[in-house]
């Protein structure tokens, strides 16, 4: 990382909200059943983003991540997101 500040790597997980039907998860459950995986109880299918970013501090990085999740990465009407720190 060349800029000023520190590099952080953050994982964002975006899943359909619990009350919203998850057609993709259902489809995968069905497909797994068809090919013989009978122990599967439930699948939730979501998106993940690994974000590498530069920020002056972890607090600032955290604030930026929250904003980008709300503004772009997740749609609050249908999705929930969570953030995990992969570095520092």
């Amino acid at each position, binding site marked *: 990382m060349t800029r000023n500040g520190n590099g952080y790597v953050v994982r964002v997980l975006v899943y359909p909200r619990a009350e919203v039907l998850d*057609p993709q998860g259902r489809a995968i459950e069905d497909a797994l059943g068809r090919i013989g995986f009978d122990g599967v109880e439930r699948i939730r299918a979501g998106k993940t983003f690994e974000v590498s970013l530069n920020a002056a501090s972890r607090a600032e990085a955290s604030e930026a991540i929250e904003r980008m999740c709300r503004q772009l990465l997740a*749609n609050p*009407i249908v999705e929930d997101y969570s953030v995990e720190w992969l570095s520092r």
Partner: protein
Amino acid sequence: MALKVKCGIVVFPGSNCDHDVYYVLKRVLGQEAVFLWHQETSLQECELVVLPGGFSYGDYLRAGSMAAHSPIMAAVRRHAEAGGRVLGICNGFQMLLEAGLLPGAMRRNRNLRFLSVDVHLRVERNDLVYSSGYRRGDVLCMPIAHAEGNYVDSDEALDELERAGQVVFRYVDADGSVAAAANLNGSKRSIAGVCNGDGNVLGLMPHPERCAEDLLGNGDGLALLAGAVQAGGARVGRLAAAAGG
């Protein structure tokens, strides 16, 4: 000759129905039409702004999500708030949802596949400029072509939407009845198109611009676009009739 209405069609990187709408507005309806570049901040005094279909920015995140942040969207928002007409078709509808100009969100189609077929729509209210060329209850045929047209919102929000009469088009069968089999993408309450509270912003998934000429075998969409450019004040006004009807 009637006064021409100036129409602006916003071009985002990845828009691909921009020319189709332009063709109908300009060549079929004889209006003044211009393309507006997504990075512009002025609407060049257009009375009608159309957000066309396509795959803005590839729709690589959620359909319409990246375009919703384009510079021109601030101007579109102001235009809408001032009562100006804004029509979002397909990807344009998705952008209006992502930008919060219309309520709700889209998920992937129920069968998780792109769907390119003709569907039937029922006109739920005809007191908007856009639907004034139809009668309430009319059953129209229009093509859909999308992978994310599965409209959703919370039950309370949907109740409110219905109560306020903001559902303008619903997927129905050929007889005009709501049926699961006719709701191919799986939209909540078979919703195909909604408007804002004032009725000046309309979004719908089907493509009226692809069925606005007899030569293409279907003219059902023409009245919608003709309505959108119909003369008269830009402000539509909140219409109580819808709630009553």
